[in-house]
């Protein structure tokens, strides 16, 4: 396989070259098609989940913002908006917790001498690996009566959901921040200390600006983890903590309403924004480190 066909390629090689590209093209199509198809469907004027004849004729009559208006409560049902608000309360708080604790720990883990480094890392990454249904069921049991005290109960509270989501976001922060730190030049902190900066100043003025892209990427991962999470909210949360994914999950399981198309489109736009941010950050830090601009 070469990126270009050499002029001397045989017919067989030419056929293989193009077949291979077509195959890869089909896989790319499979990857992206279901996500993109949602967007035009969400402007459907009818309550259908498929393209109406009017839409296929590109007739403006076939398109409308009806489902978006329903999302905002035009039909008198504010549950989507309420769920969206809840998501916007829970996700940033969980992200903040995960990022602040995770960054500190990542700095600790990348020190030259850490006892039990491998075991600690494996433990901190495990929330990503353990199936969510197990985590959530355990959290339900434990958060209902932490250490046997039901007065401390967090089940069905915002605090419980935030703590649970923070735990789920931590592996992503650890992975991205340790990756950034592994290319961090430690002589910079020593130089700062040498010139009289105390550890706190060194951290905020020297280390933090350099690892910030990794911290932000980790934060975005933690954010999307919480923003997209259903199972924990189903088990640990209660009616008061309905999030957007919760509402979608219930909607998909029972009677499927076309408002879901509008919600899905909004979520796709949010993920495009997050992805763009992460990619820009990655390229910026690669440029800073003198790697090829890509």
């Amino acid at each position, binding site marked *: *396989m*070469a*990126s270009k066909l050499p002029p001397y390629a045989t017919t067989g*090689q030419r056929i293989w070259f193009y077949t291979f*590209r077509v*195959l*890869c093209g089909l*896989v790319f199509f*499979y*990857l*992206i098609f*279901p*996500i993109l198809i*949602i967007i035009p469907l969400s402007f459907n004027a009818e309550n*259908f*989940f498929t*393209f109406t004849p009017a839409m296929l004729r590109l007739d403006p009559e076939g398109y409308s913002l009806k489902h978006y208006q329903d999302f905002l409560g035009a039909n008198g049902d504010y549950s989507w908006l309420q769920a969206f608000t809840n998501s916007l309360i829970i996700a940033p708080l969980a992200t903040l917790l995960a990022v602040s*604790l*995770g960054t*500190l*720990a990542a700095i*600790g*883990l990348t020190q030259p*001498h*850490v006892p039990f480094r*491998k075991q*600690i890392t*494996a433990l*901190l*990454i*495990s929330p990503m*690996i*353990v*199936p*969510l*249904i*197990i*985590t959530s*069921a*355990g*959290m339900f*049991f*434990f958060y209902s009566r932490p*250490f046997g005290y039901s007065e401390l109960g967090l089940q069905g509270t915002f605090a419980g959901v935030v703590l*649970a989501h923070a*735990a789920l976001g931590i592996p992503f922060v650890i*992975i991205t921040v340790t*990756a950034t730190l592994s290319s961090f030049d430690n002589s910079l902190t020593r130089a700062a200390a040498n010139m009289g900066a105390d550890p706190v100043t060194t951290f905020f003025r020297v280390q933090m600006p350099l690892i910030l892209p990794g911290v932000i990427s980790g934060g975005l991962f933690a954010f999307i983890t919480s923003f997209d999470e259903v199972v924990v909210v189903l088990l640990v949360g209660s009616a008061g903590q309905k999030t957007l*994914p919760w509402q*979608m*999950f219930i909607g*998909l399981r029972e009677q499927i309403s076309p408002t879901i198309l509008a919600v*899905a489109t909004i979520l*796709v736009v949010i*993920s495009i924004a997050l*992805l763009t941010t*992460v*990619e820009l950050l*990655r390229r910026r830090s690669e440029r800073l480190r003198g790697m090829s601009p*890509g």
Partner: protein
Amino acid sequence: MSDATLDGPVLSADGKPLKQSLNLALRRQKIRALILIAPLLVFVLVTFVAPIGSMLMRSVQNTAGTDYIPDLMPNVVVAIEAWDPASGEAPPEDVYRAMAIDMATAFESKSHTQLGRRFNYEAPGISSLFRKSGRPASSWDIETDGPFKEKFLDIDSGWGNIEYWAAIKANSGYYTSSYFLAAFDAQRGVDGISMKEPDQRIYQKLMLRTLGLSLLITFCTLALGYPVAWLLADLPLRTSNLLLILVLLPFWTSLLVRTSAWKILLQEQGVINNFWIALGFTERLSLINNQLGVIIAMTHILLPFMILPLYSVMKTIPPSYLRAAKSLGASNWTAFWRVYFPQTTAGIGAGALLVFILAVGYFITPELVGGADGTFISNRIYFQFAVSGNWGLAAALGTLMLVVVLILYYVYDKLVGVDNVKLG
């Protein structure tokens, strides 16, 4: 350092032996690192590890509601000790008398129905006995109203059923193995532990289906991901970075959005079926609410987890190796199979293990597109937990699944290393 100390230990500036002060510095470094890690470690231990631990405990704790069985039925537990179910006779009067006392206490705290529900998992039908007997038993006078055996049998003749009493006797301790027995499709009868009839072994079937479908999905992601990763590694960086966005966008898109997209696309009146009809076919395809739907949707959702590790391994293989093989006379296939493929096995291992681990625990996608025959073990755990309310069985199934996942995680750590996980 002066000449006089040449024979003695090497000293540092403050006069201590160098070895000692190096050790001190090393210890300080270790403590500093641990202090930085400690807050997160405590946080994870409390919010994540303790919950997992309490789930493990649940799988063996013998409770009804939040109380242990021996605390709810102290008299029955003692009295039934002497009774032998294998004798083929119903328990003696003192057991019934103990039941009358405990039933009355339980009725006052409204826990008699919970007790009934607990034993109903072991002996279906017993819960109605508890429900019916609570109120009458609370009005009996223990000293004068005996014998209680007849009184219980008057309420419901089920109280004479040896199987029911055997279930109570078998589960009279603080801890029980009955949830694990159920999770392994075994049962405890009057004559000991035996496997259920083959057609009733639902959890075995479900475990095998979960592992089988996960394996198939892993294989599908490998078959689709390998060529794409190769193409990405082979193209100039500028082009491959653009194409990589097509892989990363699904990765970043909400799981529910992708699942609902497939639900909408694959349904009977959906886009794909309409297109199929427009092509001239008359029969609509049933693509959803079966295993096919789960495979299509989950392969799509997990594909980026396969492509990204493969890509990062393939990027490091110099293209000159393949050219060298070919210039030495290897055919295209030999060059690929003998030279390129062996170098990518690390990526295949990393990707396949990650996809498999994630697939085994999937809940949302099988729940929404799986129908009856496409559900995974997670769905059954959720059902036992949220619908049946049989938390003990849910916890036992969860424990079994956790063991499987942790073994895979250990293998992943040995082969790939948890600190080598890459995102994007």
